[in-house]
């Protein structure tokens, strides 16, 4: 758990700035690192996450590409196999549909298929999350697809601090890493140390200690779960909130240990609920903590519908602190 209030020495920046800083520091450290994507240079992406990088590193290392997601993923695989460390920007997670062959049949399998001879040290940065009135093709959270594929690592930062530390780890990793950023989180502020630090993959973060129920969350749903915990507090329900940080590798031990203690769990994630990451995490817990569970492990994902445009409809599709708290209350027999 990180302190709420920054001390004098602590610096507060946005999630977007944390990503930007991680990239800048890594590009200074290692000339092999470069960025490629649509409108990444002068525009700094539509989300302005990369603003200024082209000024420092030039158009040769912050490369504006044609609108060719498969192509830029593909050239990144080839560049990674031959000594570079590309960071490819896929603007909306929904466009991941276009890069699956390059990421799954090429990037993910090359090291294994070559008997360990070839490596593909690349990072694919993309976004997830609905609630921006962007409708069904600009609102998906498709991290479950990548999490399903051996050879890929999947990262889902939930704070500016984690964003910087995890992105640095991703860039230094010798494997293809898919890095999901919540569009709604870009303007969120948090304490982020200047200078270098990394956060290891596969280490979940206990955001809040509790004893009655464990809320396991990813990315955008960590904040939602923390708010749910606040709602539950006065009702005498002490919720432990854990951010898995990376779905691959998954820190099973921390999750199972927590649920052995609390005996109850809810897994919250913004991907479609069915056949999504909540299913894997819930069954890992249901298996590992079976003899300690007082109630079934519950899952809360995005409503299983294409994300609708109309606000009155879209707002129903994303888990909220209230829906999580309601489920928790039922699970704890408080209603």
């Amino acid at each position, binding site marked *: 758990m990180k302190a709420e209030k920054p001390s004098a020495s602590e610096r507060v920046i946005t999630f977007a700035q944390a990503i930007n800083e991680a990239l800048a520091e890594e590009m200074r450290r290692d000339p092999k690192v470069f960025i490629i994507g649509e409108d990444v240079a002068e525009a700094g992406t539509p989300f302005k996450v990369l603003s200024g990088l082209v000024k420092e590193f030039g158009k040769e290392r912050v490369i*504006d590409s044609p609108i060719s997601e498969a*192509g830029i993923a593909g050239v990144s695989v080839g560049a990674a196999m031959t000594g570079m460390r590309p960071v490819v920007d896929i603007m909306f997670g*929904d466009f991941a549909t276009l890069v699956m062959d390059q990421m799954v049949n090429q990037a993910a399998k090359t090291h294994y298929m070559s008997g360990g001879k070839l490596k593909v040290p690349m990072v694919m940065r993309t976004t997830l999350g609905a609630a921006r009135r962007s*409708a*069904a*093709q600009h609102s998906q959270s498709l991290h479950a697809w990548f999490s399903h594929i051996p050879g890929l690592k999947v990262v889902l930062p939930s704070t500016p601090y984690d964003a910087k530390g995890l992105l640095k780890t991703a860039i230094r990793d010798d494997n293809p890493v898919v890095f999901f950023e919540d569009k709604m989180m870009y303007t969120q502020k948090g304490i982020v140390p200047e200078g270098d630090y990394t956060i290891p993959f596969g280490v979940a973060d206990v955001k809040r200690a509790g004893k009655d129920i464990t809320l396991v969350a990813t990315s955008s749903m960590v904040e939602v779960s923390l708010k749910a915990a606040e709602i539950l507090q006065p009702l005498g329900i002490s919720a432990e909130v854990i951010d898995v940080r990376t779905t691959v590798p998954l820190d099973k031990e921390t999750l199972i240990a927590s649920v052995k203690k609390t005996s109850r769990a809810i897994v919250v994630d913004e991907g479609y609920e069915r056949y999504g990451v909540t299913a894997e995490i819930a069954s890992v817990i249901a298996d590992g903590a079976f003899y300690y569970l007082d109630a079934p492990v519950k899952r809360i994902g995005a409503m*299983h519908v294409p994300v609708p445009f109309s*606000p009155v409809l879209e707002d129903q*599709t994303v888990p909220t602190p209230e829906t999580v708290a309601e489920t928790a209350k039922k699970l704890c027999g408080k209603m």
Partner: protein
Amino acid sequence: MAKAPKIKKAPAAVAAKVDDELLLRFYRQMLKIRLFEEQVNQLYLGAKMPGLAHLYIGQEAVAVGVCEALRADDYITSTHRGHGHCLAKGAAADKMFAELLGKVDGYCRGKGGSMHIADQERGNLGANAIVGGSAGIATGAAMSAKMRGTDQVAVCFFGEGALGQGLLYECMNMASLWKLPVIYLCENNLYNEYTHYSETTAGTIEGRAQAFGIPSETIEGQDVELVYRTATKLIERARRGEGPSFFVCNTYRFHGHHVGDIDRAYYRPKKEEQEWKERRDPVKLLADKLVRSEIVDRKFLAKTEEEIGGEIKAGADFALSAPYPDPEEVEQHIYAE
């Protein structure tokens, strides 16, 4: 509806008369798009519209020139910048505004919004938020028309940025092999979002189609008559079963990439914008022509504008007061029964 224009020319030119009416119709359609989009911008600025919208202002002559050459039962597929295509194919402003506001009276019951407006009763198979994503749909619609033995034609609208998507080439290859009645309509407005197309487009645009044996035309897309005549030629060709064609219309978007794109100087010069707006505004160009050739006078145009403005205003008011969908609708239409 404005009363028929006073024809000041000698009754001699009877054939021309039709043209005059057609030109006037073009004008009304283009003006409707212009005013519709200006209203959309107002709704956005007034925080009345959820999300963003990509305005078609500046490109009106393309959608109108092409759709006026199509039959009601012909197909079009559209893009994220699709309001103009939708209106030009015959959609009603009020139901479109309702869709943009996420209201139940919208063409998609508020579920699609700006980037997914579809109006299949008039052959509009939908806007598409995936750049190039409709190449398959348009080509498949043409294939279906051919298989069903109709003489329908499909027009695939896309921006020059979609030339970066491999799907387009896969589809053009099949369309050419199977002589499908589809027209690939590339609206080259010079920019892929915030990047000039010359930085993303190697070789030539026409060559992309010629490589597949598909004939191609490139014209000034701000001249609605020229667009209409060229479209008519290519559509008739497709209807005759002579296969696909590629049609590049050079045009320009007067506003930002989307309504929120205000500071554009870093990616395109103010001077360029001014030149296009002053010298190559398709609506202005047509208005001048209508007056110059004495088809109508300024007073008439003013009246027309007033009248269409009223229609737009009424449409927006309708949408603003229309109800949102019933919350239960969120779980409807996931699957067709």
